[in-house]
């Protein structure tokens, strides 16, 4: 049954996307862990298509917002409007009030818009003029962003990056796979072919089930040692936070669930570390001067290779 949800969602997404099974599984684990995902990649690598087809396969209410430089916070979270009939101010809900919000090219919006999303991402609610409104449950944000070196983008603040449970980088695929993509897409892709893969009640049961997965003390210790290794590395200015540790443990728990286990194993943690830690690390500028600078993803890879899991 648990296996069926993973297989069914992956199968549906694969109807419109080639070779994105791993990314779909990561999104599913993030969803069951009640987290948000950041999809990064150059234009044209199916970030938006992945988000859309994933939401569709889950059968959840879905909204897409294209982020732009002239955007205001109320364009996303909503705001107070004057009701001419009742002569009162009323809260008009913004597009964030949905199950799955696709924040397309999130880093094209200015920092104040990005900051407006912090409360919704962390607490599942929005507060405007002292009025707090709960978001629907489940609520997941799938944000896409272009790499920072692209023109017209604002880097996401650390506080917001830390609220994304995972960052999934979508790169170019092998030659033969790209040939398949062109062949399959040479005529228009029919996104309607993605069917709802799981009923609402199955989804709710699965969300409860994912929370009941056991994470042993040994594995919590492993998570802590991995985080500590990022903090003690001289090439890192800002290491993995306690929130990062919690999110890693939660994501590992959900990953175990979608693979049909009621307990987390070391491989669940190890596999997810790059996706959960890499975007949270801020590398030391001093290491640039000494020639020791490496990219955060490579550093995480190095740390994962050095820290011994329980065996």
């Amino acid at each position, binding site marked *: 049954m648990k296996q069926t949800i993973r297989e069914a969602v992956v199968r549906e997404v694969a109807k419109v996307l080639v070779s994105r099974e791993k990314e779909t599984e990561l999104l599913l684990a993030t969803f069951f862990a009640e987290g948000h995902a950041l999809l990064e990649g150059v234009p044209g690598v199916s970030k938006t298509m992945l988000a859309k087809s994933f939401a569709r396969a889950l059968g959840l209410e879905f909204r897409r917002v294209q982020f732009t430089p002239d955007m205001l916070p109320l364009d996303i979270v909503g705001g107070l409007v004057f009701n001419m009939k009742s002569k009162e101010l009323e809260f008009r809900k913004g597009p964030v009030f949905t199950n799955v919000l696709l924040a397309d090219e999130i880093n094209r919006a200015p920092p104040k818009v990005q900051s407006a999303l912090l409360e919704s991402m962390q607490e599942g609610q929005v507060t405007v003029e002292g009025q707090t409104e709960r978001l629907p449950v489940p609520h997941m944000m799938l944000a896409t962003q272009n790499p920072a070196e692209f023109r017209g983008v604002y880097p996401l603040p650390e506080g917001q990056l830390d609220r994304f449970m995972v960052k999934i980088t979508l790169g170019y695929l092998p030659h033969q796979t790209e040939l398949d993509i062109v062949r399959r897409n040479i005529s228009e892709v029919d996104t309607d072919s993605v069917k709802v893969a799981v009923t609402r009640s199955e989804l709710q049961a699965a969300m409860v089930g994912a929370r009941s997965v*056991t994470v*042993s003390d*040994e*594995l919590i210790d492993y998570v802590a040692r991995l985080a500590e290794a990022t903090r003690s590395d001289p090439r890192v200015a800002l290491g993995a936070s306690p929130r990062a540790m919690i999110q890693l443990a939660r994501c590992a728990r959900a990953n175990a669930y979608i693979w049909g*286990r*009621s*307990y*987390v*194993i*070391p*491989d669940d943690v*190890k596999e997810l570390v790059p996706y959960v830690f890499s975007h949270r690390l801020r590398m030391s500028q001093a290491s640039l001067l000494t020639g020791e600078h490496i990219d955060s993803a490579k550093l995480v890879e190095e*740390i*994962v*290779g*050095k*820290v*011994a*899991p*329980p*065996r």
Partner: protein
Amino acid sequence: MILNVLAYVAAASGVAVLVRSPSGFRERTFRELAEVLRGRFPELPEGFTLREGLARAREAAPMLDWGEIYRALDGYEAYRYGGLPEPDSPQPALAGLVAALGGSRS
């Protein structure tokens, strides 16, 4: 090299005893197996998991009963990380694996 040989012999001897004595055998067997894997495949990083080590061993010894070995691993993980009861049946496939990796068969 000498240390590796000693590790293999020690591991194989341990497995031989454990196969005859079911109580707690699996946990000790897998701990020993991790050491044997480390010695046999020095390219494995310090952070390797048992599953990664076994995947490497499978490439080196594909003729073993890998279905049985992975079933034993599943049971061990369920016991160690899931708090489920430790299976009490001996696993000759594990002894065979250790032997194939350089130890002596029980």
